[in-house]
């Protein structure tokens, strides 16, 4: 990444971010300052608010109160420019099962306005080891393969920030190595990934955020204000 570090020293900043769903605060008062290039593991039990926090950061869901900026763009208004710097890796692969891997990637390449789409698609399919199976329909491929295509899709438009929700789901040991290599521990990429596998987190995370009932109960990932300015 060639951008000057000082202007974007903080990649993700949230201020008292709260999301109320069905009468309870699924995410409550979450304030984080995650620097560029940091790799944050989001930990917590099921229902602690990890998925909702990621949905908020990805602009899929609007906050009930509080606000956040991602790479300096405010979440409110959901600017396209903000969406373009975010890559998403869900626990569901989010792929069209009646289309091939290549077709899925080409579609999202066009939606994200990737200029060199065809070379980029080839590059990524080779990276995740699926170039030879690129024209098979997604529905006939295995769960682990789906997750590899999803990984390729997440990185397709060269995002600066990767938001991942339990990305290990369905991956074999080989796939896990790949995941760490190209995504979670990839240098330059700012990562926020929810996980319930603490053993796996040590391999890539530079900081932890632990959620409990929507609140942050432990945060070793954020940097305080003063330090961020100097960084």
């Amino acid at each position, binding site marked *: 990444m060639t951008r000057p570090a000082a202007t974007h020293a903080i990649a993700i900043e949230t201020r008292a971010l709260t999301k109320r769903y069905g009468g309870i605060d699924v995410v409550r008062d979450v304030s984080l300052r995650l620097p560029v290039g940091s790799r944050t593991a989001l930990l917590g039990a099921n229902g602690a608010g990890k998925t909702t926090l990621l*949905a908020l950061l*990805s*602009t*899929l*869901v*609007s906050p009930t109160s509080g606000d956040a900026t991602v790479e300096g763009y405010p979440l409110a208004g959901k600017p*396209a*420019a903000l*969406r*373009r710097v*975010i890559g*998403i890796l*869900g626990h*569901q*692969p*989010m*792929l*069209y*099962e*009646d*289309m091939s891997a290549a*077709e899925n990637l080409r*579609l*999202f390449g*066009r*939606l*994200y*306005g990737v200029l060199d789409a065809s070379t980029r698609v080839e590059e990524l399919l080779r990276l995740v080891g699926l170039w030879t199976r690129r024209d098979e*329909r997604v529905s006939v491929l295995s769960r682990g393969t789906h997750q590899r295509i999803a990984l390729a*899709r997440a990185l397709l438009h060269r995002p600066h920030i990767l938001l991942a929700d339990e990305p290990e789901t369905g991956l074999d040991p080989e796939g896990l190595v790949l995941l760490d290599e190209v995504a979670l521990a990839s240098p330059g990429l700012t990562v926020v990934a929810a996980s319930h596998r603490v053993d796996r987190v040590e391999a890539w995370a530079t900081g932890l955020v632990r959620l409990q009932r929507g609140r942050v109960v432990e945060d070793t990932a954020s940097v305080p204000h003063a330090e961020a300015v100097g960084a």
Partner: protein
Amino acid sequence: MNAGLAVIMKDLRLAWRDRAGWTTAGAFAMIAVLVYSFAFDLAVGDPRPLLPGVLWTTFLFAGVFASGPTVQRETDEGTFDALLLAPVPPTVIYLGKAIANLIALLVIEFAVLAVATILFGIALLTTTIVGIVIVGTAGFVSLTTLLSTLGASTRARGMLLPVLALPLLIPLLLAAVRATGAALDVEPEAAPWSLLLGVFALWSALIATILFPLAVER
């Protein structure tokens, strides 16, 4: 624009790959026309007074039933979220679905018109009737696509969609049936039905494109 085209092509490709749904809708439309012919004795005597109603109720039911499943899969597979996350306006996503649905339905409808032309010996594929069918279908597809897209993420599925869509579509049904009747020379065009049809199509397209982005907010 490029993104819009990509969405439309994607939806058409999926409609083609997942033909089972649309083939069923087509088969349903054909069988409905047959059932009506037996029920109303269309084979005997002049079928023209009843034919517009038969055709349009068939089109409406086929359209309402067919618009659900495609959107349902999109929601279940999570791809709807993926689309919403992409840097394209939600309106584009909606238009892609609506246009793909429109094209798929028009194919079915023209097939029905062709078959009915043969069965009843009445020329149905005339310019006027084709025009009425295109405008009328655009009018109801924009609403059924909106309702089924939004309904897919709630439990409002299946049987509920016809209950929701059909009362709203009564003006369209009246206009389309009467305009088709006038085109078949069974009645004078006593009111500007074609105009109403056009107004309804514009109204529903406009309202759906305005409401869709607001409605998919979460």
